[in-house]
């Protein structure tokens, strides 16, 4: 497998007569044809198996031990069960609670990785079909020489064409299958081995994401590592509702490109609004700047309930599974486009376009499965244009009078509130509406996740979510924001400029806001955090739903985060890399710092690079509204690189944290690469996976988690200045643990010298040395004889 760069070839000959010999049933298999031109020597771990990087995982898991938070006391995965695993009880198969919890985490990570890899395979197959295997990879017209840092690091290959990416996905599919097999009854029994495999799944997920985004950037003309990628419109208020409106939802942009292409070809771009939710929305704006983003996943129900979309086109991942019911309710046409998400609809792929459109227009057909993106484009546009005039006359949301009448049925049983993930005061708001006061419902809109669980809980069958959206209708019209179009990769030249300042700590850190929209208090918190860290000269990255949330807020001067801050990977930049799969570029940037700035060998050299990133690159991932299994896999990819991840309070439902113990000195020793001695490096970063209770706690923790053993005193002082300042402002007082993070007096921020020194003296602080840190004995420098 070491030098795979082309798909395998299999030749079978039934019978062959020649002068030399007579062959019968000859089968020749060539695993791969290598056209290797990359001169960098192969590292020790190309295409790692499930256990190749187990020693590295064990190093991390010794520092960051799992703290399990079982979401259920039972195991119900086989017919022995249900088995009660409470405390020290074991299941019928012998499994313990820690192993069961880590097994569930692995299942979640496998689901996430499989989803990205499958998505990647679909995108790659599509672009290869249209542009050919020899279509060159191009993620940056200039300034991107390390085109695929994750692929180079994990697989040890340097892809040049779309075809070169196929063996990477072959490997991913192989590994995900093995990983899923691990979760079968009677396989792995040790929780730490499950955890190691969770990290492996995360790494595979990162590969899958990188391949997907490289393929679509290269073939579909997305912005190529462009810091000045244009601004796209964002928010429900940006939609011209007089025009026919198409809504695309999901993650695979292919059907949406079919719509854009059809509009362009037929000179209809100005006549139809293409709007999107979730990552398809981000990617369709990378394809066409005229497309509009409605918002993150939590906007699905409210936007559909608003009645604005005439046609809804769904692809894959994070699409509400009741979309057909919802679209039928507003009499919009639904087109499903993915084999992974058919919703019970008839496959009309091979039917004539006009027949399908006619069915939609007559209202006889609520939806259809169409597995041809070009055809989707034509049908969606024709249908939207045909049904829009009729639909514009209908009102989907309840009028104020109807709303009040519906609310009068409320008995204050509180079941709506008890179904609400954020425990919002839903019943009180409905009761107030019954008296004509809609302001409480309007307020709920800001914090509502849009899950709709309040409705089936209601014994009086009140359409609670519709009431919320109707009460906030004026507010939705004012949702007029913007987002920087997903730029893709970070340029090598940008890495060269910031690599030193990051590793030395002069740029206090890289903070990446990623993931879904299961926020405890709405989108606004993400925007506020992004702007605060950008203001403090951190490099801020965004992706996916969080990238949208970051743009859905205006500061005191009326500017959104993307208007206020540059899109460059620089101190004070807010860098939207793109959709979920573009997360790979954030990991890629950390990897490129090790490779380009520090000149560490990249090829098939995972452990060394991860050791470098963990000890020297002050990066932190923040998935404030992480909800999905994909988010679990994305986080796991960052963990294996040693990058900590902070989640919101709902994140404890992922069933375990990876927490360091700052009070256990023995956990924080590193090798000093210069001397080979084991020295105290301090509890940095303190945790690998941490759930914060509030935005304020998260911000303080983010500042703390950017510290690394390698920080220079100047860098540490910069990081401490932010940590202390945020702590004082958001929590109150000087951080009680600051003595753990000051290594020498030179680490203390100048403006805080007296105050911090006083604290240190009161807490018996001792000075310690700043190491050249590594967790790998083989990285200790040996003297040349």
């Amino acid at each position: 497998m070491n030098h795979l760069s082309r798909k395998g070839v299999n030749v079978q000959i039934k019978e062959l007569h020649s002068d030399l010999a007579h062959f019968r049933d000859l089968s020749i298999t060539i695993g791969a044809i290598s056209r290797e031109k990359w001169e960098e020597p192969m590292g020790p771990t190309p295409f790692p198996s499930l256990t190749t990087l187990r020693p590295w995982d064990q190093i991390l898991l010794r520092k960051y031990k799992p703290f399990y938070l079982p979401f259920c006391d039972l195991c119900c995965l086989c017919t022995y069960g249900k088995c009660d695993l409470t405390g020290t009880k074991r299941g019928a198969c012998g499994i313990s609670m820690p192993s069961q919890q880590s097994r569930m985490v692995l299942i979640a990570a496998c689901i996430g990785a499989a989803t990205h890899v499958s998505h990647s395979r679909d995108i790659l197959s599509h672009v290869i079909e249209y542009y050919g295997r020899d279509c060159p990879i191009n993620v940056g017209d200039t300034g991107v020489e390390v085109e695929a840092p994750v692929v180079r690091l994990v697989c040890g290959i340097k892809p040049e064409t779309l075809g070169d990416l196929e063996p990477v996905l072959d490997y991913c599919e192989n590994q995900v299958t093995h990983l899923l097999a691990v979760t079968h009854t009677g396989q792995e029994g040790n929780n730490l081995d499950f955890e190691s495999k969770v990290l492996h799944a995360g790494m595979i997920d990162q590969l899958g994401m990188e391949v997907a985004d490289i393929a679509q950037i290269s073939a579909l003309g997305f912005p190529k590592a462009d810091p000045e990628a244009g601004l796209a419109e964002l928010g429900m208020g940006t939609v011209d509702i007089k025009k026919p409106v198409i809504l695309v939802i999901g993650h695979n942009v292919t059907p949406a490109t079919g719509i854009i292409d059809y509009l362009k070809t037929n000179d209809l771009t100005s006549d139809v609004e293409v709007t999107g939710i979730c990552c398809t929305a981000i990617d369709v704006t990378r394809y066409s700047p005229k497309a509009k983003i409605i918002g993150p996943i939590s906007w699905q129900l409210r936007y559909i309930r608003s009645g604005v979309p005439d046609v809804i086109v769904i692809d894959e991942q994070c699409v509400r599974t009741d979309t057909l019911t919802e679209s039928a309710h507003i009499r919009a046409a639904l087109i499903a486009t993915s084999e992974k998400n058919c919703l019970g609809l008839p496959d009309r792929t091979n039917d004539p376009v006009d027949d399908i459109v006619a069915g939609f227009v007559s209202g006889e057909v609520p939806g259809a499965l169409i597995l041809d993106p070009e055809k989707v484009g034509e049908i969606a546009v024709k249908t939207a244009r045909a049904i829009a005039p009729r639909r514009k006359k209908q009102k989907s949301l309840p009028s104020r009078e109807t709303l009040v009448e519906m609310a009068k049925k409320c008995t204050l049983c509180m079941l709506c509130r008890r179904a609400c993930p954020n425990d919002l005061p839903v019943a009180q708001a409905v009761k107030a509406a019954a008296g004509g006061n809609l302001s409480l419902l309007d307020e709920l809109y800001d914090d509502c996740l849009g899950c709709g669980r309040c409705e089936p809980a209601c014994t009086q069958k009140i359409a609670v979510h519709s009431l919320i959206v109707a009460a906030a209708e004026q507010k939705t019209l004012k949702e007029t924001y913007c987002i920087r179009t997903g730029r893709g990769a970070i340029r090598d030249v940008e890495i060269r400029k910031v690599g030193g300042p990051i590793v030395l700590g002069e740029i206090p850190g890289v903070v990446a806001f990623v993931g879904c929209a299961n926020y405890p208090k709405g989108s606004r918190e993400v925007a506020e955090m992004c702007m605060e860290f950008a203001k403090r000269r951190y490099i801020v990255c965004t992706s996916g739903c969080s990238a949208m949330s970051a743009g859905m807020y205006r500061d005191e001067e009326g500017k959104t985060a993307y208007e206020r801050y540059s899109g460059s990977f620089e101190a004070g930049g807010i860098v939207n890399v793109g959709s979920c799969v573009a997360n790979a570029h954030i990991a890629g940037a950390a990897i490129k710092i090790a490779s380009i700035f520090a000149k560490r060998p990249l090829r098939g050299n995972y452990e060394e690079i991860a050791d470098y990133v963990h000890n020297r690159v002050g990066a932190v991932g923040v998935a404030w509204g992480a909800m999905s299994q994909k988010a679990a896999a994305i986080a796991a990819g960052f963990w294996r690189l040693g990058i900590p991840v902070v989640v919101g309070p709902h994140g404890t439902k992922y069933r375990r944290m990876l927490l360091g113990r700052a009070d256990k000195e023995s956990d924080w020793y590193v090798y000093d690469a210069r001397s080979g001695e084991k020295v105290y490096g301090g509890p940095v970063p303190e945790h690998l996976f941490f759930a914060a209770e509030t935005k304020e706690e998260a911000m303080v923790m983010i500042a703390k988690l950017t510290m690394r053993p390698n920080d220079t005193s100047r860098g540490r002082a910069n990081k401490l200045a932010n940590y202390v300042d945020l702590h004082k402002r958001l929590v109150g007082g000087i951080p009680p643990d600051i003595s753990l993070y000051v290594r020498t007096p030179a680490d203390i921020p100048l403006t805080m010298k007296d105050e911090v020194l006083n604290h240190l003296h009161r807490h018996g602080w001792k000075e310690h040395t700043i190491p050249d840190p590594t967790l790998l004995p083989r990285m200790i420098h040996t003297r040349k004889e």
Partner: protein
Amino acid sequence: MNESWQTAEIPGPKKASLIIKPDIADAIIRRAKRPIMIVGHGIIEYEVEGKKLIDCLIQLARKAKMPVVVTASTSREFAARGFEPAALMSAVDIANRLTDPEWKGFDGRETYDLAIFVGLPYSMEWTILSGLKHFAPGVKTMTLDCVYQPNASWSFPNSTIKDWAANLKGIVANLGD
């Protein structure tokens, strides 16, 4: 009465015993050798009849001579009332330490045998109490929230804010001076 506040949060066979009157909570606190209280940010917003419930908790901690861990930005409220908590620490961090039988507590003596939780977001407290139920056999847990937490050892049933305040006041009164 022992239904989870969030209706779908059903854990399994082992569920919290109900505290049906303040005397029970008071007795549990008195019986504990090393109790500790963990107070989340959610407590700050509540007041009944013009009195903040956080004041009630401070009284309780003082009377029971119980160390208090404050999470998130709760510490500012305690400081404003002249009460110094034993520690400012995140909820997952203190819970993780409570699962370690070797941990000597904030005073370096020994670990705690009763952890009282109040004021964390419901689902976060639910999962944290689950972690302690399974992995901290030496630590009993009690919640003083007004919602039933099935993963605690003891919990009040779902109740109104007014009843909640009365329960807290009752516990404080029972503890005497």
